[in-house]
C-alpha cells in the first residue's frame, strides 16, 4: 500500500491512481529523427534505481494528471508538481 499525494485531493490510496510512467519525454521531430532516435522515444525508458520523475493520473478521484518525483528504492515521494511544470532541480 502506498499513499499518493494528489495536488487537489491530498493523500489517497495508490489504487485510486494510474501511473503514466516516466515524465518529461521529449518527442523528436519525426521529419528529421533517425530510426534509432524514434525507437528510443517510443520504447526506451530509464527505469532507474533511485530518483524518478513520473506522471500520475487520479483516475478514481478528480481525474487530473500531475507529476511526482519518487525514489524507487524506498518509495519516498520527493516532490509533487503540476503536469505543465518541468522537473524540480533539487530533487535531481
Amino acid at each position, binding site marked *: 500500500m502506498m499513499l499518493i499525494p494528489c495536488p487537489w485531493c491530498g493523500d*489517497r490510496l495508490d489504487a485510486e491512481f494510474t501511473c503514466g510512467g516516466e515524465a518529461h519525454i521529449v518527442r523528436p521531430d519525426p521529419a528529421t529523427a533517425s530510426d534509432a532516435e524514434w525507437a528510443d522515444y517510443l520504447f526506451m525508458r530509464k527505469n532507474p534505481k533511485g530518483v524518478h520523475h513520473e506522471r500520475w493520473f487520479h483516475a478514481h478521484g478528480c481525474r487530473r494528471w500531475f507529476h511526482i518525483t519518487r525514489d524507487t528504492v524506498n518509495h519516498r515521494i520527493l516532490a509533487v508538481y503540476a503536469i505543465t511544470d518541468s522537473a524540480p532541480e533539487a530533487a535531481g
Partner: protein
Amino acid sequence: MAEHWQRQSPLTHLGLSAHDKNETSAASLVMAELRFLAKVTLRGRIPGESVRTALGVSLPGEPNTVMTGNNLSALWLGPDEWLIVGPPDAERAMTGQLAKALPGTAVVDVTEGRTTIRTRGPMVLDILAMGCPLDLHPRAFGPGRCAQSTLGRSPIILHQVDGAPLFDIHVERSQADYLWTWLETAGRPYGVAVEAVTAPPAWRRPAPRRYPGAFPPFAPSPSRQPTRGATVPARSVPSS
C-alpha cells in the same frame, strides 16, 4: 422524441419498499435508496456567482467540498468540474437555467447515470472502512465534504451530509445492485435495516435578479438635468 417513458431505478428488483417498515433503531447500518435525484454536471471556468443567480446554490471552490442552497447540493469533482444534485424531476429546469446563464459551458444532465444509496447508523464508518480507502474519521472528513473514490472496488461519489454521520453514495447505475448487496453483506453481522426516505423538498427557480438596494434603477436627478440651450465647455487638450 419520447415524451413519456417508464423510469426505473436500478434497484427496483430488490423490492426495497417491502422492507422499509423494518425497525431501524437496533440496526448498526441503515440503508435507503434516494431514487431519481436530479444530477447535472458542469465543466469549465465558471464564475460561482452566475450559478448562484441561476440556481440558488454557489459552486464550492475548495476541493472535495459541498455547498448547499435552495434544496440543491453542489459537489466539487475537479478544479473545473462540479456535480449539482437536486430533488427528482428538477433536472430539466436546472439544465435550462444553467444553459441560459453559462453559454459555452458544458452543462450535462447525468440524472439517469447514477442512483443514490443513503447510509447511516452507529457502525456506518466501520462498514464503509471495510471497502473504501478514504479516511472518513472526523479529524479528516466531515459534514459538507465529498470525495470520489471506490467502495468495494466500485467507483463512487461520496457526500457526507451531516455529522450523525449520514452519507449519500452516488453510484453508477450498472454497479448499484452490486454495491447495495456489498453494503448489506458487510453490515449483516452487525444488523442492517432498510428505511423509506421521504421525497426531498422541491427546487424552485430563483426569482429573477433585482438591482441590489445600493443601486436603484437609474432616474436622472432634477439637478443633473441639462439646461435647455446650455453650451458644453470645450475639453482642454492636456499638454504633453
